[in-house]
């Protein structure tokens, strides 16, 4: 798909609305979610502006993106989030912002995203399990949020936490990981224009199974770094904890940049299977920094990426 003619339309403009509305009905029916939640706000278009950071690769379908998820708070199977995430209450939602910020506090989501310039970012998404998709996220740069709350000079890192609600998240009953789910970035990674807080996909509000109402997207890192359903953001001087890194530090490093030359101890990262190609799809080579090398390689100049994986 490289070298294809580029235009400034959103992908939502070419996927007929009726098609994904029908899919929504289907998904809602499957999850017995007819009790509300799905219907109302999901129909509002976000009207995100196109972005030069978008890839021109073919995005996966709405159905694929919303029916195959790793969101262990709802269960460890890929189908569990689509089945159970409708239980998550996303309205009202507030995010606690604390640590080394100028204006700490519990921010209602609306206030936090108010005035944020929403863009559609069609990014490659590479899971540490060696599969990948292309997703048309809608969001705004994390930098915008950080400028709003004010970063104190001593802040070197940023930590995030996912909602921890056993009543709404059945997967929390199992201690697969130490809950709540945590992730973190270095401050320069957080300030990078590719790093976004996503609030939607396919120009619609974020489906619960994809991390509603607000999640992080860091496209050059393995998917698990892009923490979902964020309730807390903490700026720190020390490197924050990260759930998978805590669970298996030899398998999941703090950086977890996509790197075809550093294999996971249990599988190679040299290639990936782009999902959606059916039973006989060929593997494709994994790109350094998931193809965002030009934009982000500078962040790691002089670092041994085999050691700091």
């Amino acid at each position: 798909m490289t070298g294809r003619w580029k235009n400034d339309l959103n992908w939502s403009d070419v996927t007929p609305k009726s098609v994904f509305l029908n899919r929504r009905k289907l998904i809602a029916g499957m999850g017995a979610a007819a009790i509300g939640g799905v219907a109302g706000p999901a129909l509002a278009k976000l009207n995100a502006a196109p972005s030069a950071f978008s890839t021109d690769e073919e995005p996966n379908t709405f159905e694929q993106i919303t029916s195959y998820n790793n969101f262990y708070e709802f269960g460890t199977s890929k189908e569990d989030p689509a089945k159970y995430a409708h239980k998550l209450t996303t309205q009202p939602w507030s995010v606690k912002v604390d640590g080394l910020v100028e204006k700490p506090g519990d921010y209602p989501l609306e206030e936090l995203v108010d005035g944020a310039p929403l863009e559609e970012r069609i990014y490659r998404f590479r899971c540490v399990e060696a599969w990948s998709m292309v997703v048309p996220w809608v969001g705004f740069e994390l930098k915008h949020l950080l400028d709003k709350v004010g970063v104190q000079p001593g802040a070197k890192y940023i930590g995030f936490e996912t909602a921890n609600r056993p009543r709404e998240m059945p997967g929390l009953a199992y201690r697969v990981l130490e809950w709540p789910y945590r992730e973190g970035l270095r401050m320069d990674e957080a300030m990078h224009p590719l790093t976004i807080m996503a609030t939607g996909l396919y120009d619609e509000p974020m489906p619960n199974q994809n991390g509603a109402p607000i999640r992080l997207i860091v496209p050059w890192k393995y998917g698990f770094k892009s923490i979902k359903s964020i309730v807390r953001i903490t700026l720190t001087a020390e490197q924050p904890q990260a759930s998978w890194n805590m669970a298996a530090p030899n398998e999941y490093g703090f950086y977890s940049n996509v790197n075809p030359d550093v294999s996971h101890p249990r599988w190679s990262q040299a290639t990936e299977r782009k999902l959606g190609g059916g039973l006989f799809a060929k593997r494709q080579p994994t790109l350094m920094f998931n193809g965002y090398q030009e934009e982000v390689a500078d962040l790691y100049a002089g670092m041994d990426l085999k050691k700091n994986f």
Partner: protein
Amino acid sequence: MDVVGTLNAGFKRLPPWPLCVLGVLPVLWLFYRAVIGDLGVDPVKRIEHQMGLWGLWLVIAGLSITPLCRLAGLRLMKYRRAIGLLTFFYILVHLLVWLVLDVQILSEIWKDILKRPYITIGMAAFVLMIPLALTSNNWSVRKMGAAVWCKLHKLTYAVAILGSVHFVMLVKGWQVEPLIYLVVILTLLALRLDIFQRRPGQAQRSAKA
């Protein structure tokens, strides 16, 4: 009439060969669904995992037969060969899907087998199954003699442990499901220890297994 007696009488009339035929159907069904696009976003992993899981179920079924006979008096011994051969077939498909549809690249396959412990272990379990499958016929039993044949087929125990450890190791984090299978298999093996063997009046020891 007691339940066990009724069941045993029923089993007497039911030959083992239909098991082999029925056992192949789910595999065909799975591939058919994959081809028509009914297996979700990642049909390759879906088949691979399903075949491995069903294979493990069959391992457990096969290991249950001796304890069921010794402890409950159920006579299912004649189905064991069919179950064993089906297990081999399922794991063979599991392996082929991994080779051909998942990893695809020959050099990567070798690297994986040598470098990744969970694959090494799974592969070892498969290799140990080959002599078992090849000798699962009356001719082999006669040729080898029952004692030697029985000894060889004790490899099943190793296969069962390796197979369930393979599952525990391949998932991300400590998940419950694979641990349950490991515990079940260890329990079924423990039931074969001498301390569980004295049940006076229970069905007489059938050919040691």
